[in-house]
Every structure is written in structure tokens, then in C-alpha cells.
């Protein structure tokens, strides 16, 4: 190789094609042109966004009202110099390195029963990634009523340092799956491993629902 003339990087199209060449074709097909919605960009949502970008989804719509804090860093997909930034902005920066063509739309606000359809109406798949149990329950009602046409993946129970074998995936309605142990709250403390496990189960479950498979 001529050190004064290094090989040029492949074009973006070629790069994108190469990135997903090892992913099952049915996964690539299920994600082509698709939009996913992520409510909450903490330990679950930041990693769900990371994995969906890595998986090759076309567009992410995300909402979070919070800023990156030092207590987030041990568990969430943010860097030390992002402390104080809105999570929506910090995540957009991180996603830029993952998938060149990804379209990212963010809303720095709290998601409510009133605004959820306006923000996420174009999503093909929804991820519930908030930390508050009452908000999870509120979103469950949304998933059963005004947004029942799309699949939803909820997460409940990823606190403490309990065995991975307690985590499960459960289909609870035609368009709704819940992952987690449904038992251990974050008041038991939180570990990146167990939160990422739940996030990973959410992504796999959501992709399978887009493929038309059982959760």
C-alpha cells in the first residue's frame, strides 16, 4: 500500500450496504424506511436509540424533558462533557457517529396523554422508556386506545442486581409487549447491565413485532 495515497473510504451507500450485510435479511426488510418512537432517553431510551440506529432504522422520533446529569453517566449512553445538555441534543450528537443516513427528530418536552399522538403519530413502532410508573401506566392506556394501530414495547422492572433469568418478555395485548421482571424498581439501585438488558430485550422484541413475529 502506498502510504502517501491511502485508500479512500467507501461511499456512504456502499458503507450502509456493508454495515447491514451480516444482519438477517428479514430484519433489514422490517426496518427499511421505518420510523420508531422513543419516549424517554434515560438508561432504556438512550440505549434503545443506539441499537435502533445500529440496526439501520430510517428515522427516530424521541422525546425527553431532562438534561444529562452526572448520576446518569454510569448507566446512560452519554459522555462526561455532555453533562448539562438536554438529553435530546446529547443523543443527536452520539447518533451522528452511528448511522450516516439516520433522520432524528426530537422534542424536548414531557410526553403526556394530550401530546403523545401529535409527537409520535408517524411512528411505526413505539418504545416506552420512561422511569415513572404512573407515566408507564398512562402510556399503556394510550397504547390500548389512541395509538393501538402500532406495536408498543414497554419495560417494567430492571432495578437492583437480580439475575438476568428473572427478565422476561410478555405479550399482554395484540399490539403490546412488556419486558422486564415486573417486580424490582429503581429504588433498589440501578446497574447499566440490567438496564441495558431490558433495553436490548425491548429492541429485539420491537423488531420482531415489525417482522410480524411473536414478541
Amino acid at each position, binding site marked *: 500500500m502506498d502510504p502517501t495515497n491511502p485508500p479512500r473510504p467507501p461511499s456512504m451507500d456502499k458503507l450502509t450496504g456493508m454495515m447491514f450485510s451480516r444482519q438477517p435479511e428479514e430484519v433489514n426488510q422490517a426496518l427499511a424506511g421505518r420510523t420508531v418512537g422513543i419516549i*424517554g432517553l434515560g438508561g432504556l431510551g438512550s440505549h434503545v436509540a443506539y441499537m435502533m440506529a445500529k440496526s439501520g432504522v430510517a428515522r427516530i422520533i424521541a422525546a425527553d424533558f431532562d438534561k444529562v446529569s452526572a448520576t446518569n453517566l454510569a448507566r446512560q449512553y452519554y459522555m462526561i462533557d455532555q453533562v448539562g445538555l438536554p438529553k435530546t441534543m446529547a443523543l443527536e450528537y452520539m447518533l451522528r457517529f452511528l448511522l450516516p443516513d439516520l433522520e432524528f427528530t426530537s422534542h424536548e418536552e414531557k410526553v403526556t396523554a394530550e401530546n403523545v399522538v401529535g409527537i409520535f403519530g408517524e411512528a411505526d413502532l413505539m418504545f416506552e422508556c420512561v422511569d415513572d*410508573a404512573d407515566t*408507564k401506566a398512562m402510556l399503556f392506556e394510550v397504547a*390500548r386506545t389512541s395509538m393501538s394501530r402500532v406495536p408498543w414495547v414497554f419495560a417494567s422492572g430492571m432495578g437492583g442486581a437480580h439475575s438476568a433469568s428473572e427478565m422476561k418478555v410478555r405479550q399482554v*395485548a395484540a399490539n403490546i409487549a412488556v419486558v422486564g421482571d*415486573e417486580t*424490582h424498581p*429503581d429504588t433498589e439501585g*440501578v446497574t447499566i447491565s440490567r438496564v441495558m438488558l431490558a433495553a436490548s430485550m425491548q429492541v429485539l422484541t420491537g423488531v420482531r413485532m415489525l417482522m410480524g413475529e411473536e414478541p
Partner: protein
Amino acid sequence: MKEITIKLNGKDEKLPEGSTLADLYAKYKAVNRIVGEVNGEIVYEPSKHVLEDGDVVEIVSFVGGG
């Protein structure tokens, strides 16, 4: 006491006749934020909802963390 059989989260469950959805929550010592569905409909007043034989009940227990 007569018993009824319901389907709870996909499994058969026997309960005394006249049990409410709230009784079922209590039986499982559910202290979390619970959403319950009976036959595909969300129940908003579980203490007033008397369960009947053959009901299909889905309980989702939401705990904090995300």
C-alpha cells in the same frame, strides 16, 4: 364456597365466587402501579369489578425505572 376459574396472564386461576379484580391484585400482594384488563378492556375501578367464570384477565405491574 363456590369457585370460579379465570385465565390470569395466560394461566388458569381459581378464585372464590364474587371476587373483584382488586381482590386479585391483593392476592398477588401487588403494591406497584397496576393496569388490569378483563376480556380486553382496561378496568379503571378494580374494587367494583366482580370477576366471572371464564374471564380472561391480564395484569401488568409497572414499577419505576428507565
